[in-house]
């Protein structure tokens, strides 16, 4: 009784992940794909490196740069995966015109989209790993401290990634009911998170009202937790009152909350799309 649906879910995830791989990664020579995965994180890392260096009169402030580096590197999951999921809806609906055929198949859109996100997760992971290696080998950064539990680091990354995926599903729901040019809004949202999470600066420089917003975002706690695990110290004084355990709890609860919200939200958006006949909408003008 249980094996059937689980097996079917696995089949849908596998098939959509395969499709995602073909569409996102397998269209080009491997080196072009590799460049896609690493050019952006490396270039952004270097931009930040030189920004710190020029202020420090030629010597990068290694300790501060380490915090900026970690935040910027792991934020790659947000930009890649968050945008990737909602982008899938637009592309399937309007470029490939396949969304309606997938929709009329006995496949739930939600696992389909999660499967399609697999390649984005893989690409982001590759980018993160290459950036970490680059930071360690080229920029000479120390990643991790003697007490770092690497298994916990992986756990924290996965927990944050789950949050990103569910937020991506929320955006995908919105994408189902809005025109393609609203993609700008999704990209803007990613920029807003980049700003509010303090990915590349200490939260404390944000104006007070922005800081309050920042404390509502799970990614704020995620990046702080990763920084503490990998450097042994926190970056934001505003989060100083939270212990590591608190950050874990906040992150876990936020992920569960996002999951619940995403499930309800996506269902609602799907219903609106079906009520208004938007599954095969063409808005490319």
């Amino acid at each position, binding site marked *: 009784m249980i094996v059937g649906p689980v097996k079917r879910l696995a089949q849908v995830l596998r098939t959509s992940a*395969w499709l995602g791989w073909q569409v996102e990664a*397998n269209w080009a020579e491997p080196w072009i794909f590799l460049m896609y995965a690493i050019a952006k994180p490396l270039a952004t890392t270097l931009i930040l490196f030189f920004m710190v260096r020029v202020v420090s009169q030629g010597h990068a402030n290694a300790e501060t740069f380490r915090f900026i580096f970690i935040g910027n590197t792991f934020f790659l999951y947000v930009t890649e995966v968050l945008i990737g999921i909602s982008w899938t809806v637009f592309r399937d609906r309007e470029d490939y015109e396949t969304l309606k055929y997938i929709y*009329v198949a*006995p496949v739930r859109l939600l696992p389909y989209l999660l499967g399609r996100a697999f390649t984005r997760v893989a690409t982001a992971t590759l980018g993160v790993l290459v950036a970490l290696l680059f930071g360690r080998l080229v920029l000479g950064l120390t990643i991790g401290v003697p007490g770092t539990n690497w298994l916990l680091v992986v756990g924290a990354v996965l927990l944050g990634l789950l949050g990103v995926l569910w937020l991506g599903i929320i955006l995908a729901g919105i994408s189902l009911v809005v025109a393609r040019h609203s993609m700008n809004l999704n990209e803007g949202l990613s920029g807003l998170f980049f700003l509010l999470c303090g990915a590349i600066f200490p939260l404390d420089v944000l104006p007070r009202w922005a800081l309050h917003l920042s404390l509502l975002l799970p990614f704020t706690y995620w990046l702080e937790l990763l920084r503490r695990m990998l450097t042994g110290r926190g970056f934001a004084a505003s989060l100083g009152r939270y212990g590591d355990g608190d950050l874990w709890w906040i992150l876990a609860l936020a992920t569960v909350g996002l999951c619940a919200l995403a499930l309800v939200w996506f269902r609602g958006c799907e219903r609106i799309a079906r009520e208004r006949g938007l599954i095969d909408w063409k808005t490319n003008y």
Partner: protein
Amino acid sequence: MRALQGVDLEVHRGECFGLLGPNGAGKSTLIKILTTLLLPTSGRALVVGYDVATEPFQVRRRINLVSGGDSSGYGVLTVRETLHLFSQFYGVPGPVARRREEELMEITGLRDKADARLSGLSTGMKQKLNFARGFMSDPEVIFLDEPTLGLDVEASRDVRAFIARWVRERPERTVLLTTHYMMEADELCGRVAIIDHGRILALDTPSALKRTLPEEAAFEFQVSATGQDLEPLLEITGVRSISHHAHPGTGAVELKVVVQEDDVIGEVLGRLKGLDRSVLHLTKMEPTLETVFIHHVGRGLTDEEAGNGA
């Protein structure tokens, strides 16, 4: 504006049912509702006994859809990969899927292109692939929305032949077809519904629909060129009109007689003999679906109105 109102129809299992209507009549809206792409604002629609609004997943397990004119698909995938991909979304076991891929590629003439990427296919080829995709799940009900739209004559014939064969070989399977082409509906459908402005205007077998036309019958004769004038035929009670002209090839006269009832034709034959005209050929002219359509809708299929975008 309501795209559909008061539509009440039942399509039987094993039937090939046609929906005829001009642009904006509501055909596509109906198909969208039945394929779970659109929720009805009111009323109820069941497919294979499942409510499309409340049990969409049960419906989707049993149906498939082909929208004609679509050249949709992922450009990086090959023909074979595309067919396999969609079979997996329906949970078709691997060996079965592979067998169907081969069969469908053979039937649609895509075998030579099996390993070609979609981005390199012509529009016609992509449409054929889209058609094949619809049958990969061997659905209990297939919705074909203008399946031959944009295809060339030969490809359209192949598609029609495939549908006819599929229906013949699988008597439990049901086809719901919308088309602009009357001949297509006449050739394939057991019953057709004529729909306009969201309402069903007529619903029956093609021959029964033709019989609903005013009770006149038209006969076409070929009679010998020599003999007396044909005008006295008009004196026969029940003859409505006659028209005639010489056939340019044979020199025989082609005579068209419209009579009130079929019985009158016996008297016409007798009178022709009296006029020294020998009858070389006689055909009863059947009304076509086109005539039926014009009779019900008041305009031809391709005459557009300001539609509701359905």
